[in-house]
């Protein structure tokens, strides 16, 4: 399993970098797979409504009405039909890549099981939508699908009469059958939308719309494809003739050859086993749970920054329970908490300067408290000497910083780069513990905890609370985002950053604070 993930991860990283040559990180299609899937859903919905206006439910009328759209009204109806098909295919493509990428990034276990688990019925519902859609055209492909599907359904002991018997002879099919199919074809996407909503319930700030540029680009692609290669039917269905050769839409119908090759029970067993494996994958094996975040009410003033920053909706505000003069207090839902520590990184009380009293932030990780991080920073930096001393703060999901071999650097690892409060950077420079700080998190667009990289960038840029203090020399901070396998890239970026630091330990930085260097690995 880990080997498969590593291979997939390597492949995705290669593809992400290749796409990065032409797309910004915001527009990179691989960083917007879920949002693209949603976008295609809406394209399918709008184009489907248009096609439905002209669709007739009847054994001959169905085919004729689609042919009218394709031939007579090719400039609009035909394009709408093609958009309907290609956006549907795009949805399956995005969904498949989305699943593989989340699997490769290990973003499906632990508290994330719910999102993965609810994605499994989405997969099947999308397939049902596609099958019923192709069925409605009532061409040779539809005939093949209808017979193969009903023959497969008949292997289940739930139907009294074989429903494949409805497709025996040209006279055996009733117009009302198409009414049933159109009902299923409309109901299934609505149910799908409802499950998509459930799918995102445990995701904070889900990205369901791609960036405008990417949306425009992908839509123009679909329109161009619709004009160049319009969707067409495959000859009218004739129940007296076998559709011997069909042009399958492999995105939706790739499993159909199995129906011909295998007995029905084996097809159902295979589909059931695949579904079961996908459903229980988050527990194969289960992710080791951390204790998660805990709230210390003595230091919580109910500011709700932790709620804003939590990527998994694991922190909520509740009425104050301890009698202090604040309206609310933070409450952690341990079932949803992944233990990333981003909440502690957002807490204004997470200040390492506190010495007289014990350092206990309002919210902190129970098993990796920030007090320990401060002690660790002091310990590892005490071994640095001379000029260009650098502290590298890594994260558990990026490049393992402990293995870096760069002279005069000290390393610590956080559960997520977003767990480091900006005040800790201020602390390092104020105490002269290092001459530079390199924040090394996950690769751009693939932060394991979704917002660790984004919040860190915003905090360091002084655009998000808690802000990095103005007195901190920005040019002495490097942001190095690199995926776990990109050790050499990170080393190169860190060495490049070190070269920008003044050679003498007491030399002031050359650039004004606001125009600092960002080393993007």
């Amino acid at each position, binding site marked *: 399993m880990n080997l498969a993930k590593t291979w997939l991860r390597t492949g995705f990283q290669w593809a992400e970098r290749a*796409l990065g*040559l*032409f*797309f910004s990180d915001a*527009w990179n*299609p691989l960083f917007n797979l879920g949002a693209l899937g949603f976008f295609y859903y809406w394209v399918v919905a709008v184009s489907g409504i248009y096609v439905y206006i002209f669709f007739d439910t009847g054994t001959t009328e169905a085919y004729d009405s689609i042919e009218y759209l394709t031939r007579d009204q090719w400039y609009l109806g035909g394009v709408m039909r093609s958009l309907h*098909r*290609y956006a549907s*295919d*795009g949805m399956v*493509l995005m969904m498949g890549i989305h699943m593989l990428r989340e699997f490769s990034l290990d973003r499906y276990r632990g508290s994330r099981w719910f999102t993965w688990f609810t994605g499994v019925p989405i997969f099947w519902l999308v397939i049902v939508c596609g099958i019923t859609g192709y069925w409605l055209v009532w061409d040779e492909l539809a005939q*093949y699908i209808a017979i193969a599907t009903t*023959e497969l359904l*008949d292997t289940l002991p739930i139907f*009294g*009469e*074989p429903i*494949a*018997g409805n497709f*025996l*002879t040209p006279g055996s099919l009733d117009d009302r059958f198409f009414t049933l199919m159109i009902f299923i074809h409309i109901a299934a996407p609505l149910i799908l939308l409802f499950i998509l909503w459930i799918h995102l319930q445990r995701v904070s700030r889900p990205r369901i719309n791609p960036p405008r540029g990417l949306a425009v*680009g*992908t839509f*123009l*692609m*679909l329109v*161009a*494809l619709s004009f*160049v*290669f319009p*969707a067409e039917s495959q000859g009218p269905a004739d*129940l*007296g*003739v*076998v*559709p*011997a*050769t*069909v*042009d*399958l*839409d*492999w*995105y939706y119908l790739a499993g*159909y*050859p199995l129906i*011909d090759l295998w007995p029905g029970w084996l097809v159902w067993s295979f589909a059931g086993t695949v579904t079961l494996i996908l459903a229980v994958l988050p527990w194969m094996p289960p992710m080791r749970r951390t204790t998660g975040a805990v709230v210390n009410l003595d230091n919580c003033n109910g500011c709700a920054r932790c709620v804003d920053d939590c990527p998994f909706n694991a922190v909520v505000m509740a009425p104050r329970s301890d009698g202090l003069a604040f309206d609310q207090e933070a409450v952690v839902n341990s079932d949803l908490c992944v233990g990333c520590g981003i909440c502690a990184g957002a807490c204004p009380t997470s200040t390492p300067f506190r010495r007289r009293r014990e350092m206990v932030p309002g919210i902190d990780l129970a098993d990796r408290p920030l007090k320990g991080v401060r002690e660790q920073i002091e310990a590892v930096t005490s071994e640095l000497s001379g000029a260009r001393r650098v502290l590298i703060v890594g994260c558990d999901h990026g490049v393992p910083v402990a293995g870096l071999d760069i002279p005069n650097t000290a390393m610590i690892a956080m559960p997520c780069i977003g767990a480091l409060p900006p005040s800790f950077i201020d602390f390092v420079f104020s105490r002269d513990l290092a001459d530079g700080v390199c924040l090394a998190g996950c690769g751009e667009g693939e932060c394991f905890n979704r917002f660790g990289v984004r919040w860190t960038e915003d905090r360091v840029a002084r655009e998000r609370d808690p802000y990095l203090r103005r007195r901190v020399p920005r040019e002495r901070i490097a942001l190095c985002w690199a995926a776990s396998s990109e050790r050499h890239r990170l080393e190169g970026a860190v060495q490049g950053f070190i070269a920008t630091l003044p050679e003498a330990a007491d030399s002031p930085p050359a650039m004004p604070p606001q125009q600092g260097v960002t080393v993007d690995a």
Partner: protein
Amino acid sequence: MRSVLRYLGQAAVYGVIAVILGYFSVAPAYRHLPEEDSQVKISFAHGAKPKGECRRLTAAEIAELAPNMRRPTSCPRERLPLLLEFELDGNRMFSESLPPTGLAGDGPSRIYRTFPVAAGRHHVVVRMRDSDRTEGYDYEREAVVELVPRQIFVIGFKADTGNFVFVGAER
């Protein structure tokens, strides 16, 4: 210049995605049946005779029944299995005992089977036994059929006419 190249690169990426989308939406073609073959389908539902004879109830037995349930005879509920045979050009293609459906075994026996057959002239024989006889058949029909490539020839059974129904080319 750099941004122009980036947009050109994006257009190329969209082009590749479009080709992938367009190609696999219709290709490669899948051959479900050799183009020169035709297909024979057997599909029908028919209830065989009850398993055992009806027995006339005695007056005492009838009296024991609820007034609205009284009847002169008692018949076994379960049906016999159907024995069905299908021969093509003297070769036995199918011979099976089809059990009755239903939890109590009182429903009709059902069959839905397809057989790929080379196109051309064929001698078709279909026989069925729906009684407790141990030899011979209760229904039998044969025909010479001329099947063209990809044609579907359907064999059904209609209890009201009491025999098999052939739908398709028949001579």
